[in-house]
């Protein structure tokens, strides 16, 4: 860690842990602000659903003791933080004996792979279009067309997802409308049928995310390209008679793209939120669907666990980008005024 000053590292780590502690505390406080406690509410729901529950008072007492709700608030808080450290979010109410951690673990691979894929493609497409937009050899028609596609950027991902789902899954029938693979027909594993099925099911969700977020990168790249275009070394490169495409790639894009990497940290929160909604629309078995089903079933432990987990994931990614950045761009000295 020669390049990162210790003070910067400490500050970044401090923000990371503060973020997580802050999120955990909010999530702890919120349900306790509501009237009643979660257990009574749950038993109340059960009573409504299935008539009278026998010895409901005893059940409530038992559960309260089991979840530590009979303890004082500070004591509960300390226990709760301790449980979070071990990633113990309690049990799902909806699928009772299943721990929340297991529900999340099942959904996580789908969410992560979709997120990663969409992120990389968005970054590549967005930056490429932004570069092309300012390149002097780009055909005029293309330059006029790109800003039109940017309209999608302003649209929430749910809307794009609904639009794609309706047109390509229901009207045209080119893509499936739910799940991450053809459940029941292909066997999960490393085989062609499964991989093909996963790709077919993942195309629309990924497309929805890409459509609504590439424009952000295009705009940023365009701004950076304007700056790079004014640099002296660009004149030199052209005067040397280098091939236009070589100049575009080696002189312009490679210089302009660096600040875009920091923007990753800023967009990540939006990206994660957007993906949760896209997954819900496409019934993709990731975190979005978990959260949606938990909301429907009033399954608070799962809602809390999943939200906390996604917040932690985002904070961790932001921390990584911030710590890696000085290595990617040597011009930036870490710890400077932000």
């Amino acid at each position, binding site marked *: 860690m020669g390049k990162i000053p210790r003070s910067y590292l400490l500050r970044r780590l401090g923000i990371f842990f503060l973020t997580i502690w802050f999120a955990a505390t909010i999530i702890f406080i*919120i349900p306790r602000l509501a009237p009643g406690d979660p257990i009574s509410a749950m038993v109340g729901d059960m009573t409504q659903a299935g008539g009278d529950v026998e010895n409901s008072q005893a059940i409530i007492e038992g559960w309260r003791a089991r979840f530590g709700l009979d303890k004082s608030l500070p004591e509960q808080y300390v226990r709760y933080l301790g449980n979070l450290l071990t990633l113990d979010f309690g049990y799902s109410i909806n699928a009772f004996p299943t721990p929340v951690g297991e529900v999340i673990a099942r959904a996580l691979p789908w969410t992560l792979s979709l997120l990663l894929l969409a992120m990389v493609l968005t970054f590549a497409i967005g930056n490429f279009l932004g570069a092309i937009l300012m390149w002097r050899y780009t055909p005029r028609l293309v330059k006029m067309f790109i800003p039109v596609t940017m309209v999608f950027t302003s649209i929430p991902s749910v809307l794009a997802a*609904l639009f794609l789902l309706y047109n390509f899954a229901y009207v045209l029938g080119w893509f499936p409308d739910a799940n991450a693979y053809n459940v029941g027909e292909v066997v999960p594993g490393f085989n062609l049928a499964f991989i093909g099925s996963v790709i077919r099911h993942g195309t629309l969700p990924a497309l929805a995310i890409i459509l609504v977020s590439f424009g952000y990168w295009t705009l940023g790249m365009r701004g950076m390209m304007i700056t790079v275009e004014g640099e002296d070394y660009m004149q030199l490169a052209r005067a040397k008679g280098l091939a236009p495409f070589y100049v575009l790639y080696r002189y312009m894009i490679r210089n302009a793209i660096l600040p875009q990497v920091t923007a990753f940290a800023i967009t990540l929160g939006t990206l994660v939120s957007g993906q949760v909604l896209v997954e819900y629309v496409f019934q993709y078995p990731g975190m979005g669907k978990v959260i949606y089903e938990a909301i429907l079933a009033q399954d*608070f432990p799962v809602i809390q666990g999943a939200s906390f987990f996604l917040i932690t994931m*985002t904070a961790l990614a932001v921390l990584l980008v911030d710590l890696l950045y000085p290595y990617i761009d040597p011009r930036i000295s870490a710890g400077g005024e932000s």
Partner: protein
Amino acid sequence: MTTSQPPVDVAAVPPAPPEDAPRTMGRFNIWDTPWFNARLMTGVGIITAILLMGVVGQFFWDVGMATERDRTARFAPPVGFTNFRGEPGSWAHPLGTNNLGHDMLAVALVGAPNTFLIGFIAATIGLGVGIVLGFTGGFLGGWIDDFIRLISDVTLTIPALMVLIVLNSVLDRISITTMALIIAAFAWPRATRQIRSQVLTMRESGYVQMARLSGASTFGIMFKEMLPNLIPYLFASFIAGATGAILAAVGLETLGLGPQNVPTLGGTIYDAYRGSALSANFWWWWGIPTVLLAVMFVGLLLVNLGLDEIANPRLRGRK
């Protein structure tokens, strides 16, 4: 004969400015301001149109039909289309009805302003807090600045939607105002950071030094000298905040966590999604709120880009 031209209405055509007129003359033309750029005007036009529709529309259309059940007309299609029962659309419900017979036109007329209201309240609060904290931090510096930076950095990292989901899932019944207030709790950090960085660059400029030398109070410098110079930024920050707030609101509503007693566009999408409107091809049920929201967001984007041009002269005249 060859030179005959159609008569030109002289009054309608503004006289072309003389070629060699001094450049500075342009400043005296009130139309020659960056505020009149095409993007900003189009965006403002779109948003005004949607808002006007909601405000004026209730005088021409019975908006009570947005929540009133009409059992005789469930799943009625928009005019010019037929539904699965082969019924043609009628002018009684020009945009069709949903599963309960709610009139979609009324839903659109009531829902769109509601959505804007959430954005407006949240962005106003967010900007207000942002101005106070951004100025305080940027101008005073020291540990106050460190603290403000720290909490805004922390809040910025948290995907607001996640906390909002937890919060809204606990609350039983929420109103539009409650929802706006909850969203506002996450709208201030970005505004704070933007304003703070502007204040930092402005703090050392000549006129601020001048004001300081002439003995102006800190408060006076901040709000009488610096604030007016930030107006384009504040507008941009406000619109960005409103866009973010509406985005969060729509996200919550489509997850079924919005206000239940008033029709909202996102809530309509949620109902339609749960009512299998997509697979059953009741496209007007989910499509109308979707298109309306999309147009709204395009309008907000255009306003954002237009304000960017004002705040950032470098972008002017470039395509």
